[in-house]
């Protein structure tokens, strides 16, 4: 599914798409948060890109670790530690491996999600990125059990994340800044769920190329 070069390409593609969606994500955050999610993500993946372009990395795990560290040390806010932890955890799962398969990716996403949930003390249904990531993980696991081909499995995960984003629009936030709004948060998609969906989609598309 993905070797070191593919992982590198994935991060570059994420960096591109996040830059492109910067204002969109920021607008989503402006509605129910403080209007910086796109700026934060662009800063973090900009820093990740710089780090990858200026260093040399031996394994997928090394790359993911560098990304996680960049996110933690350059972003701040909620997204920095959450996504940073997610990438660090994913990195650990495939430590030493040259090639990532679908089972690996599933394990990575599981560990990433665990990291987000424990760092953010969040569970599904609180209108956060968890609402995109957890359905995606569930879909992946099911696909893996069914022996679905990687491309199709990833597509199902992306679809599940997309539905998760849509679901966040219908619920009240109970974690993060949006929780301060109470019922006024209903009717808006969660920006972090949206960025998670965008990232998963980019991973799927890049890996299927």
């Amino acid at each position: 599914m993905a070797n070191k070069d593919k992982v590198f390409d994935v991060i570059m593609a994420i960096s591109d798409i996040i830059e492109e969606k910067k204002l969109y994500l920021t607008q989503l955050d402006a509605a129910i948060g403080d209007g910086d999610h796109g700026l934060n993500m662009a800063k973090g993946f900009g820093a990740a890109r710089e780090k990858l372009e200026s260093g040399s990395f031996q394994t997928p795990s090394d790359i993911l670790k560098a990304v996680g560290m960049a996110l933690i040390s350059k972003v701040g806010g909620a997204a920095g530690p959450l996504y940073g932890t997610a990438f660090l955890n994913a990195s650990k799962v495939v430590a030493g491996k040259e090639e990532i398969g679908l089972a690996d990716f599933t394990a990575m996403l599981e560990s990433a999600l665990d990291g987000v949930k424990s760092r953010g003390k969040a569970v599904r249904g609180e209108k956060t990125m968890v609402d995109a990531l957890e359905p995606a993980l569930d879909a992946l696991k099911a696909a893996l059990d069914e022996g679905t081909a990687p491309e199709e499995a990833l597509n199902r995960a992306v679809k599940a994340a997309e539905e998760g984003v849509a679901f966040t629009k219908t619920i009240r936030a109970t974690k993060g800044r949006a929780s301060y709004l109470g019922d006024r948060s209903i009717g808006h998609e969660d920006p972090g769920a949206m960025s998670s969906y965008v990232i998963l989609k980019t991973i799927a598309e890049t890996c299927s190329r």
Partner: protein
Amino acid sequence: MKKVINNPNNVVDELLQGMVLAHPDHIRRLEGFEVLVRKNSPIEGKVALVSGGGSGHEPSHGGFVGTGMLDGAVAGAVFTSPTPDQVYEAVKAVAGPKGVLLIVKNYTGDIMNFEMAKEMAEADDIKVDYVVVNDDVAVENSTWTTGRRGIAGTVLVHKITGAKAETGAELPEVKRVAEKVIANVRSMGLALTPCIVPAAGKPNFTLAENEMEVGMGIHGEPGTHREALKTADEMVDHLVGKILEDLDYTGGEVVVLVNGLASTPLMELYIVNKRVHEILASKGIKVYKSLVGEFMTSLEMAGFSVTLLKLDEELKELFDAPADTPAFKSL
């Protein structure tokens, strides 16, 4: 966007440079970091206090670094909590054997980043503990939310905890005082105009010419509701009413803090203060001291918050202790 800046992406760095140039007797910057510490840090024989958060709230927090208040302040990007490694550097620079207390405002991002910094510092065998300020009664204190936001009341935590640390008390004692302040401080604010994060270039939200946002956060987060502009007295009645509903101040003595968000002139803040005093007098609540000015701002937002801190003898004495920082001096 009418701002006196050079480059939206460089405002925090230039701010910190400008602060150090203005206050070389009080503060210095940690080379290569967005961190201000007391000029002579680490100070011997005391617990060091470190606070911080997103920038755009000046003079918070760098303006409160100095004798009797903070030892270090970490400046994140505008309205974005600082990263763990910045906080970690601040902790390392100010830590002595008595350890470090982090004063964190209750935002998911701030808590996660400061917690990670604490983990990093503990790996270096530095004693670190933290308190979380959550004074904003606009947010319902339900177990179903992240809890209340930390806003202007944080400055009173800096002041009083800073005075305690200055006595040479041990970390648990200093933390106890911080938590006592937090337990007794409540705030609420409202905004008349939005503000513009420099890198975003446009306001988070808009308000009609006759509208205000009640319960507004200090990052432009929406408040409890919008309504038509009212008189100053009606605004204050609502905010103080909410505060008094939340905590029983009956028969007590308080510090009043009337905090300007930025564009609201001092003239108006004093008009607010007058009404706060009138309400408290009518309820038999005695005002021990008042602070009126800009302590926890929100870029160029117009609006204000009111904070009431309920005092006991210990807090009174610590409140009155001397302080000498760029933005808060008390003789």
